[in-house]
């Protein structure tokens, strides 16, 4: 049985529904990333689990107990806030031991726990420091220690790394993951950074407009996106609508009729730039087009290629000159093919076409 069980959760403010029937089962010791663009409802989901926003319908269970209507203080779910929300009038030790003080744990025992936690988050000797004297990364760790001090049933992290600069973010990301593996806490982490989600989570839930679009292992989400939105969000941002009538597009898919209209999503990194050749009968997608722009990315060059109406991105180690005619080739395993008939209703997809 799942440790944290969310069933048909619906949340909204006034007439506006933000979460539409969320179902999510989190196993004990698992870390799930809630991934989505801003405004998709991921933070609202965390707030609903913590009891900060009222739910309209649905249930939340923790270890077999229903907690849907309990006030925040009786849930034993702690949050690491995006802004850290440390109390500036307290020292590091007072911040961390707050939850223990509330639970009336004896002072000596609480102090020992504070020291333990400080060594876990690599902040030994900082117990009497003022919170306001700490750097962003250090505050982050104090916030984590404070949340872990009370041994919560579930730890939720709301974009915990977004306020850190790029370098610190990478190291904190690894520390956090290592800590989660070592201590085995059950956690939900909200992020809009796909890489962060892939690196840290055991499973990823991609949210869009208040619904879970896809839930799966990082590999599944990355390699087999189930909807155009997930494909696009996970970095397959080249999208073309394939029609048989187009002269400069050729599609050969094994085990699939190519007579219909498809939406094809693929990554620029999986797109090969080749010298222009007229006919190719390899399995996969072949396009011809003109190079419009190139950008040096370090490892390779990114080419902006116009093929008829569509503009595509393709990476190559070679820099093709601007205005040269090239062929773009995408192997079949790198193509995410969506039948337009079944995905037509998806709003994300529509907006994608417009954008």
């Amino acid at each position, binding site marked *: 049985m799942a440790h944290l069980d969310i069933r048909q959760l619906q949340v909204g403010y006034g007439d506006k529904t933000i979460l539409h029937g969320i179902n999510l089962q989190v196993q004990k010791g698992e870390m799930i990333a809630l991934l989505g663009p801003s405004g998709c409802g991921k933070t609202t989901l965390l707030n609903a689990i913590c009891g900060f926003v009222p739910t309209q319908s649905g249930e939340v269970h923790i270890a077999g107990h229903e907690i849907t209507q309990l006030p*925040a203080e*009786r849930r034993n779910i702690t949050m690491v*806030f995006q802004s850290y*929300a440390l109390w500036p009038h307290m020292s590091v030790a007072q911040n961390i031991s*707050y939850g223990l003080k509330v*639970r009336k744990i004896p002072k000596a025992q609480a102090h020992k726990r504070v020291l333990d936690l400080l060594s876990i988050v690599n902040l030994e000797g900082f117990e009497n420091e003022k919170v306001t004297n700490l750097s962003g990364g250090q505050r982050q760790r104090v916030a984590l220690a404070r949340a872990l001090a009370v041994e919560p049933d579930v730890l939720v992290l709301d974009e915990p790394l977004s306020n850190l600069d790029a370098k610190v973010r990478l190291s904190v990301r690894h520390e956090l993951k290592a800590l989660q593996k070592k201590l085995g806490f059950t956690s939900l982490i909200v992020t809009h950074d796909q890489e962060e989600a892939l690196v840290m989570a055991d499973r990823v839930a991609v949210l869009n407009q208040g619904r879970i679009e896809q839930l799966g292992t990082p590999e599944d989400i990355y390699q087999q996106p189930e909807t155009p939105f997930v494909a696009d969000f996970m970095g397959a941002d080249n999208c073309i609508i394939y029609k048989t009538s187009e002269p400069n597009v050729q599609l050969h898919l094994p085990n699939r009729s190519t007579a219909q209209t498809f939406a094809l999503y693929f990554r620029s990194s999986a797109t090969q730039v080749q010298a222009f050749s007229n006919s190719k009968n390899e399995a996969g997608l072949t396009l011809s087009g003109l190079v419009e722009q190139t950008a040096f990315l370090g490892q390779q060059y990114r080419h902006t290629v116009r093929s008829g109406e569509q503009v595509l991105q393709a990476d190559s180690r070679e820099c093709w000159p601007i205005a040269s005619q090239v062929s773009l080739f995408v192997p079949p395993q790198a193509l995410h093919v969506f039948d337009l008939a079944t995905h037509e209703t998806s709003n994300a997809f529509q907006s994608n076409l417009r954008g």
Partner: protein
Amino acid sequence: MSQTMTTQHRGFRSLKARFTLRWSFWAQTAFITLLALALFGPIANLLIWTIAETWYFPHTLPNQWGLKYWQQVFNPYSDVSGSLMTSIIIALCAVVVCLLVSIPAGYALSKHTMPWRVGFMLLFLIPQAFPNLTVYINIARIFYDWGLNGTLLGVVLVHSVHGLMYSVWISVAAFSSIDPMLSRASRNLGAGPIYTFIHVVLPQAAPGLIAASIFVFLESLDEFTGTFFVGAPEVTTLPLLLYTASMEGNYQISSITALILLIPSIGFMLIINKFMRPEMLSKLGK
């Protein structure tokens, strides 16, 4: 030839520059002197009066200097020390009353979900919106019916009504400037709403509340009209004493009293300067 011309020219230019400089220097000096006179002239006059024993009209300076009146004022049986005590007791009570009202009111009004929020905020401004005299005469009439006229309680209530505007508005600003995530974090860790309020919200609002208290204290110390209608003649505060003394032509006593009233004002203003944080001021009235 051309060289001499340039030298001449330069000489003329520097003379002109010097003249402009000198003119602007004297203009500035005159302006600052006038300003200083306007600001400090009356205070200097007041200071001289506090150490003058006799000072008759045609003389520029007092005929006789001395601290006789200071001794009179600080004589334990004098009116001044008695009314100073009354003033301080009333001011402290007004602070307590205002805090008791404005802590819960300020906290509630800082929540943007509160219905009629703006209406309640304006409610505390209303006593200031009408002419003071009208308001206090009516209060005096009502208090007379309730038997509060001439009592300390009556004066404390009048001063509190006056001080509430400051304390409520400043408290709302103080509570609004607290990051709501701070109390969420506390609830999250198992603390109930009251525990959270005492341990997280109140300490964060404390500087603002202290500033509000100081405002109320100072306003109460200086308040005259309300005290005059509700308290006089039974309750004599320092401003009332000052009024009587100057009406009787006793400028020494009234100057010393004024000086006594000035000291807490200046002292507390310095403290307020420290406690009023810019981010709190930006929340005033929001």
